[in-house]
């Protein structure tokens, strides 16, 4: 009898639309009851028949299992609530990874800077030949810097 009722209590605790706080409160109450029954059984051991002791002990275990079930339920509710937040955090990590990828492009950008400095020198010198060749090099470096994946390839 007690095992059957214990199962049905545990099932109800798992299936019902219960909040985490309710589950915790009930779980604590069931555990306290199990503990109180145990204390009563041990204190009244010699005053009880073996059958009564067995019945009370079974009830204690039913209450204890039910308490465990309610604890599991409460943790499950918290985990369900966190789903959206975990997706946001994972998205944040993905964005940070993307930023790291952007920083890796610094090599291509520095090559571009070097090409611009050379171009600047050529412009100051006023040499048409030097300006033409350094401008072409700067343009090529610019293409490399803005082409996705080229920086990694270059590195």
């Amino acid at each position: 009898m007690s095992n059957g009722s214990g199962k049905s209590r545990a099932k109800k605790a798992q299936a019902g639309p219960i909040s985490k706080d309710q589950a915790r409160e009930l779980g604590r109450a069931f555990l306290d009851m199990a503990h109180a029954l145990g204390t009563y059984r041990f204190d009244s051991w010699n005053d009880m028949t073996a059958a009564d002791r067995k019945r009370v002990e079974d009830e204690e275990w039913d209450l204890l299992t039910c308490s465990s079930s309610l604890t599991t339920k409460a943790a499950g509710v918290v985990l369900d609530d966190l789903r959206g937040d975990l997706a946001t955090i994972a998205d944040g990590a993905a964005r940070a990874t993307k930023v790291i990828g952007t920083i890796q492009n610094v090599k291509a950008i520095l090559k571009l800077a070097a090409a611009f400095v050379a171009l600047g020198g050529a412009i100051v010198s006023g040499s048409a030949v030097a300006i033409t060749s350094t401008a072409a090099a700067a343009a090529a470096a610019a293409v490399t810097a803005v082409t996705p994946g080229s920086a990694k390839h270059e590195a």
Partner: protein
Amino acid sequence: MDWKSSRLLRIVAGVVLFGALMGLRSSFGPAWAKILVAAVAGGVLGVTMMTARARNGTPRGAAVAALAALAALSLSACTNLSAVRTFATTSAVAVENREVLIDYAQAPTVIARLAPAGQAASLDSLAKERSKQRGRLWSVQRVLGHYFRTLADLAASSLPSANPEIGALVVSLEDAKGAVGASAITNGTIDAAGSIAKVLTRLSLDGWRQARVGEIVREVDPSVQRSVAGLGEVVTQDFSASLDQEADAIRNYFGTAFADARSRGEEEAAGRLARYLQAEALDGVAARRRKLKPYAEALAKIGKGHAELAADGGKLDGKSLVEKLKQLSKELATLASAAGTLED
């Protein structure tokens, strides 16, 4: 190059350098633009120094002063990112604690060993449910751990290793000798210009990274707060309740054996044994319970540190914030060690 051209070039260099310094620490604009501006500003400054030397031969004092100022700015940015990196790395280690999850998931199986056979089906069903929850809780820990590790990587000072490219920039400056007059330029001047480009680039990267770190931290903070609080709640309330249930199952089991022994007059034999075994089993529960508190405290400190970072608005320039992060990192390491996630 005539004197007017030289003066014009120096004015342009000044404007570029000023613009670069103002823009480098801001959160606006793409990284590549800032890095480009920084590197070109360094290069232009270098060329300016060369021309200045060509005119009056005294550019070194100004170059050294500029370099020192830039280096000081750059070092300040590095220190702040270093504090973020340490905090994020320690948080990643502290948050991932499989041991507490295993204890929680195994509790129904442990109780089933002590309970009457009639409880086996219910406890088996609970064990399966907790095994699934263990996977989900591990996912929560891993998502948080991965986030903090990525944040640490983003704040890592060694990330942009671009020295060969900066060397190429210096070569470009050497090539520019021809444009400004080879006799006027010494290797020391070129080296100084290269160093300025290097420091400016570093400053640009650190300023930009600080802004990105702040931006991501601010946006993710509400979710991080709810996740660490939720995980902490499960640990302090549900894991703790699970240990209470396990302890009660132990008392039930051994208490019955002890009461039965006493009623038979065997208190000195079977009764003693029952008491000893009960004490051993309860010690095991107490040892596992001791790991919950530091883990829950570590989660609270992770939330606190992340909130501090978010509240700083990504500037990361407050000395008190750096100090707080350093202190939190120390405390986190101690707690992680107590909770078993960090080897002593």
